[in-house]
């Protein structure tokens, strides 16, 4: 324990702590931009400077030493921070953005720059889900760290040096032309929205205002645990009822729940696993509901494609059923349906555009909006979100279980699948259904579950760097596991590329807790017990893995090479 003086007050510091970490722990405010708790502190932005022995140092990467005397604010420090902020703001619009850069600029009292705007850097719109404007980039390096070190995708890196530095794929390619998997981990940490989601709020609003269209929305499991943050609520606020109410106020004709098809995915995929084990099919079976993960395996491990479950993701299953089952039961002309999804995910914008996603006879999902886009729609409509009265989803694709709720957290799909598979194989209705061994933020989690006399070996990975490591294991030891859940985003969907920014592991933990709390509070906690799912099979699909189920709810994959071509 070291004794440190900050602004004349004595504090006790932990071993190896940085000045910034010590100050954060003790609520001493230091403005900062490039620092991120899950990434290496590279001290690029130079906003977090403090004074130590009369010298300005960056607090994010300077470790405390016993007896250190730190001043966090004086005239010199304020001037230094303001000037560096002015240099960064030069290329941004005068109207301060509602992002980290804008918020820190406001804190520093800098609302304009005396330097001229320069707009000579690359703008890239080649991606299905990401808009990239290098003119807004402050070169904090977070996106490169995420893409290279955490996700091991290496779609982007630094190009050139000095003032001419840009963050880009190699050789003037656009994101759409290289192995970018659209996990969006770059967009949920970009402080200046140089990398951001492609915005479709206008198109969706236009569709809502078009009286000829029936606009129906589905909401992903994790949204109810993260949407509140876009409206100023604390991370981890569970806002299911308010979310539905807000969507109705925005004018969606029907508000349905992706959790319904999350349950559907479980019963179909659980059945698929049982069939593979029975018929000695390809094992381990690997989940396929994360489109960023699917694109990753197509680029980097195409030889393992047979291991992917043939099940579509809940979003896509929903879209297909919406324009067939739902349309029929509600007498709606499917050609008039505009199918919208609210997703934590950038890759969903790519997934819905995949050429094979038309099993309904129409484009199954027309627009996929991120949590952030919905957040903006609610704000722009002037809706007082925090004071909305709770509302409920519409039937017959609005009922869901606790198993579906936890899809949004890493390990959630695995746990949901186990709850159903164990019941079915044992022929029982078990009460012990919390598989805590697959919960939590450890990169790769393993567990063995005894089911009907077999030791079922499972693994869960989140973040593509961990997924890669797990795939190397699978290649080396193909008979080690039976079933694997992979989520492209660290933390699972609660840490998704489309979630409120900035996303980090502290906030992800709180968001997951909201989902596990929801699970505990629901009547049904196992997917196969969902009455609307039971109804769906009785009236439409007939049985798990039926011919119709395969036609509508299962899909194929395409091998691509590492370079994206």
């Amino acid at each position, binding site marked *: 324990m070291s004794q440190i003086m900050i602004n004349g007050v004595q504090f006790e510091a932990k071993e190896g702590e940085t000045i910034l970490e010590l100050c954060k722990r003790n609520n001493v405010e230091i403005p900062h931009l490039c620092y991120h708790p899950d990434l290496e502190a*590279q*001290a*690029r*932005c*130079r*906003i977090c*400077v403090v004074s130590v022995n009369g010298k*300005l140092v*960056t607090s994010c*990467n*300077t*470790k405390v030493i016993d007896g250190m005397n730190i001043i966090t604010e004086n005239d*010199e420090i304020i*001037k*230094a921070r303001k*000037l*560096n902020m002015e*240099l*960064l703001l*030069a290329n941004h619009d005068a109207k301060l953005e509602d992002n980290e850069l804008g918020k820190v600029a406001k804190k520093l009292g800098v609302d304009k720059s*005396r*330097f*001229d705007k320069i707009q000579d850097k690359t703008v890239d719109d080649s991606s299905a889900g990401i808009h990239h404007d290098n003119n807004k980039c*402050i*070169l904090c390096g977070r996106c490169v760290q995420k893409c290279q070190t955490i996700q091991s995708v290496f779609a982007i890196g*630094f190009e*050139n*040096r*000095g*003032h*001419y*530095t840009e963050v880009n794929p190699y050789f003037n390619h656009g994101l759409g032309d290289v192995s970018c998997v659209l996990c969006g981990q770059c967009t949920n940490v970009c402080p200046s929205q140089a990398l951001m989601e492609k915005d479709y709020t206008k198109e969706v609003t236009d569709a809502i205002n078009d009286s000829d269209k029936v606009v129906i929305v589905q909401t992903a499991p994790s949204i109810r645990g993260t949407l509140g943050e876009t409206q100023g609520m604390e991370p981890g606020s569970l806002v299911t009822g308010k979310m539905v109410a807000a969507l109705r106020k925005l004018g969606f004709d029907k508000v349905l729940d992706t959790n319904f098809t999350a349950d559907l995915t479980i019963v179909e995929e659980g059945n698929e696993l049982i069939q593979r084990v029975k018929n000695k099919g390809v094992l381990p079976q690997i989940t396929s509901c994360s489109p960023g993960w699917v694109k990753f395996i197509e680029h980097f491990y195409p030889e393992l494609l047979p291991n992917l479950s043939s099940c579509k993701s809940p979003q896509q299953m929903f879209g297909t059923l919406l324009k067939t089952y739902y349309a029929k039961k509600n007498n709606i002309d499917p050609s008039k349906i505009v199918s919208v999804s609210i997703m934590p995910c950038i890759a969903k914008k790519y997934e819905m555009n995949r050429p094979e996603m038309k099993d309904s006879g129409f484009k199954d999902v027309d627009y996929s909006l991120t949590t952030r886009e919905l957040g903006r729609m609610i704000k722009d409509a002037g809706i007082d979100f925090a004071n909305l009265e709770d509302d409920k989803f519409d039937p017959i694709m609005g009922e869901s279980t606790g198993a579906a709720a936890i899809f949004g957290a890493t390990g959630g799909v695995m746990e949901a699948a186990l709850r159903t598979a164990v019941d079915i194989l044992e022929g029982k209705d078990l009460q012990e259904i919390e598989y805590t061994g697959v919960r939590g933020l450890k990169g790769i989690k393993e567990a063995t579950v005894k089911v009907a006399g077999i030791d079922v070996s499972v693994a869960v990975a989140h973040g593509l760097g961990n997924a890669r490591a797990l795939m190397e294991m699978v290649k080396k030891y193909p008979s080690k596991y039976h079933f694997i859940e992979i989520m492209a985003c660290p933390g699972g969907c609660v840490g998704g590329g489309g979630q409120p920014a900035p996303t980090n592991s502290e906030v992800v933990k709180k968001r997951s807790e909201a989902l596990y709390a929801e699970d505990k509070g629901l009547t049904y906690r196992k997917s196969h017990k969902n009455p609307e799912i039971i109804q769906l099979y009785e009236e439409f699909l007939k049985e798990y893995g039926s011919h119709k189920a395969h036609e509508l709810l299962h899909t194929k994959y395409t091998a691509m090479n590492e370079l994206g071509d």
Partner: protein
Amino acid sequence: MQVTKKTEFKGFEKAVNLKPEEVIQVVKKSGLKGRGGANFSTGLKWEFTRKSPNPTKVVICNADEGEPGTFKDKLILTENPSIVIEGIAIAAYAIGAKFAYIYLRAEYEYLKENLEKAIEEYKAELDKIELNIDIVMGAGAYICGDETAIMNSIQELRGEPHAKPPYPVESGLCNYPTTINNVATLANVPLIMLDEWDDLRLYSLSGNLDSPGVYEMPLGITTKELIEKGTPKEEIKALFFGCAGGCLPYDPEMKLDVESVNEKGAMLGSCTVIAIGKSQSIPKICKNIAEFFVHESCGKCTPCREGNFRVLEIINKIVENKADEDDLNALEDLAIFINKTSLCGLGQASNTHIKTALKYFREEFTK
């Protein structure tokens, strides 16, 4: 010049007959300071490296001489590469290193062959202490003269510097304790071992002179003594200490030593002196230097990357007589805070020329 003496590894022979710690003491006692510009005690640096817990040590010879106006290392590498190899070998012996790298700038590639020949010539001696010397080529980046950037470059990454601590002597190349020494520093070492050394500096003298060149003289000579050697072509009005050292008005009686130059706001660094004639335009030279720093900035940190770009914008305005009071104020602000908040020495020194030029030659900027 003492550094062109052919010592033929006799200094090395003497060193290996002492204990490594004794060699360090000899170098420490001599008072040898780094010739790369930082002026840090060489013996002390070796001592820190040797004392670091990790047993694997590395010697890096910094042959990335890039400070404009500096060509003393080039002279040594051209005329006496063997003494440099000998210096590296003694350093390696002293700190206990089995790996050494010569980081040679791309612009000096034509000197590589002679270095390789020297390494080959003394292979037996190097094998005696199990030392392997590799020549790693640079590829055109002034920033790679910086200690941490040179290591990143050898590790085949972008040559960006990173924060210190940790210092290279504790954790350097691939996290091994590393001593990074300038070519000229290492060239002095064999002479120290042979007790044939005088603490002389190699002044790289250039500019509006008839006899520019490398002059071996002690620290503390007067400016007049140095400039006279160079035979000025016209009246000299200013001295630029490279690009990073800033400028001072020509004062014949001023002593050329680190403190005297520092007092006036400039930096003597590696004793680079560019003599500027009366007919030259100081703002034009500052523009040239600002362009240099914009070109060579690695781009990692905001003040150096964005700040120096804006400094150049303003200087261009000044040179075209389009600058106003606000511009000069902005220039001064930038000069101060780029120095105070930049991550590495390049950024920190990149505006010394602005500060000193505005201090001593302001009239040229405002006319």
